[in-house]
């Protein structure tokens, strides 16, 4: 039987948002192939997840059961995928483009000796698959053909809108126990350390005030902090500012930093290089404050103030206080 096999993840007993997105793309692919959509779950979860998967059109669910799989162990998951592929010969294996999605899918690709297309946004079945995938954080798209049986695909996060199936309903559950070697269990989470960071994480903030090279030094971030506090937001920084040592890397917005999606991103003294813009393109509104009216960020944003952030930002703070 041919099928499309999806790897899904859960957060607090619910299907993770990025897994919903991956399932939506996987279902589209299954529809194109006129093949059933199957899913594999590793977490010890309750019945609720089965209902959720069914609503996304999953008809075959493989629950992985193994007495040594009590923690996240990426090689064990890759071995499981390998064995499921051997047994069911799926056309494609689809995973969310999350840390764990890539961690497991990359290893599975290596074991299977097949190519893997990371961060796909669109897939068309035909002679192999034609995929459209992200490069440079999505500032470039690559159209490519992938063969390989199966084709391994991850789905770019927050690019495919999650949609439940129109005719989603019932699913058949299977228990699957992989054969695992000691080496498959060598890498696994030993423990979780909780962060002692306070404040709103960048990824969840409704307002982000970002500072780039134009801020000029670590001290003047105080002005940005003040405005951010007033708006219930948090402060971010460009890679240039982080490299200067003005802010910690945790504050970095961009390709190799946080991907933010606030209601408004106030970008101060930031030119708008690709590295930065791929991190803030999820913002609903961008307000740029820059002395250079020709700066790229002025083209990418919704609103702009031409001027020196050292004067403009305190003026905004004051105007809000005077309300």
């Amino acid at each position: 039987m041919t099928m499309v096999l999806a790897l899904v993840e859960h957060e607090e007993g619910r299907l993770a948002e990025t897994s919903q997105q991956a399932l939506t793309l996987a279902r589209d692919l299954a529809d194109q192939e006129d093949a059933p959509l199957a899913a594999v779950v590793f977490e010890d979860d309750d019945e609720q997840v089965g209902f959720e998967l069914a609503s996304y059109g999953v008809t075959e669910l493989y629950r992985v059961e193994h007495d040594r799989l009590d923690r996240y162990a990426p090689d064990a998951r890759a071995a499981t995928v390998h064995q499921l592929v051997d047994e069911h010969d799926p056309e494609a294996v689809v995973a969310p483009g999350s840390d764990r999605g890539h961690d497991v899918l990359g290893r599975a690709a290596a074991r299977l000796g097949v190519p893997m297309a990371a961060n796909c946004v669109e897939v068309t079945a035909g002679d192999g698959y034609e995929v459209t995938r992200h490069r440079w954080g999505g500032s470039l798209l690559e159209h490519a053909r992938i063969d390989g049986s199966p084709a391994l695909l991850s789905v770019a996060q927050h690019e495919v809108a999650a949609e439940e199936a129109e005719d989603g309903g019932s699913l058949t559950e299977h228990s699957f126990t992989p054969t695992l070697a000691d080496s498959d269990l060598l890498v696994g989470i030993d423990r979780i350390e909780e962060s002692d960071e306070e404040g709103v994480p960048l990824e969840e903030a409704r307002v982000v005030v970002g500072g780039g090279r134009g801020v000029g030094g670590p001290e003047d971030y105080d002005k940005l902090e003040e405005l951010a506090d007033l708006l219930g937001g948090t402060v971010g920084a460009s890679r240039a500012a982080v490299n200067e040592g003005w802010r910690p890397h945790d504050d970095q917005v961009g390709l190799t930093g946080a991907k933010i999606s606030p209601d408004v991103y106030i970008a101060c003294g930031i030119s708008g290089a690709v590295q930065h813009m791929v991190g803030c393109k999820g913002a609903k509104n961008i307000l740029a404050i820059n002395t250079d009216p020709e700066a790229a960020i002025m083209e990418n944003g919704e609103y702009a103030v031409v001027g020196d952030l050292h004067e403009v930002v305190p003026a905004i703070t004051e105007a809000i206080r005077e309300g």
Partner: protein
Amino acid sequence: MEALACIKRVPDTGAKIPLTDDQQSIDTTTLGFTVSPHEECAVEEAVQQVETHGGSTTALTLGPEEASEQLYTAIARGADEGVLLEAGDEEWRPTATARAIADAIEELERKFDLLLFGNESADTENYQVGPRVANELDVPCVTGIKDLEVTDGSAVAKREVTGGSEVYEVPLPAVVAVKEGINSPRYPSMRSRMRAKRQELTRMDPERVDGPTFERIRLEAPETDEGAAEVLGEGPEAAPAVVDVLEDIGVL
């Protein structure tokens, strides 16, 4: 301790990524080159671990002759030697790249304890060269690492997740794919750059073994709403207009 840091030469992009007319690659005629940010940190991590534990750091890249520039930079940053796998101008897929790196490691007859990679390259973002090399060499692999501590034949590696980090302990040798933020890469001085250029690189001629097809059709710059931003004003006088906008958006 013997540390290996694998790096990739990539264009140093600014505000736009220009494409060639045939849409097969990035038009680099006006661009400089660098290495992916995660890999800058891989080199720094290797150098720091060797500074702590003794031993030596090797920087390795697969790419065109010009990629020697990135190896010299790695040496200027503290790596002891550079290995260039001469692959020409064409882009190699991750399967072929990983196979060539694994072959080179075996051919070098060096016993690397720590094999550092960037989590994903900046340009192609395939997320798989590290895990594929680990599979070829049959060593453990951890990815997305932002904190690394090496003790007596094993490594404690941490991966950031919402609200904290996952902690992994793996025996060495191991592949560790790191993310930017694990350390702050040093800037090489002009003197160390000059000295690095005098060093001889090891050059190897890798065999290209492509697996099942993955074929690029074309690249495309996605549409952006190019419309210029609405200018709310100039200087501090624009503040009231900004407040109005913030109220409209609903954050005030």
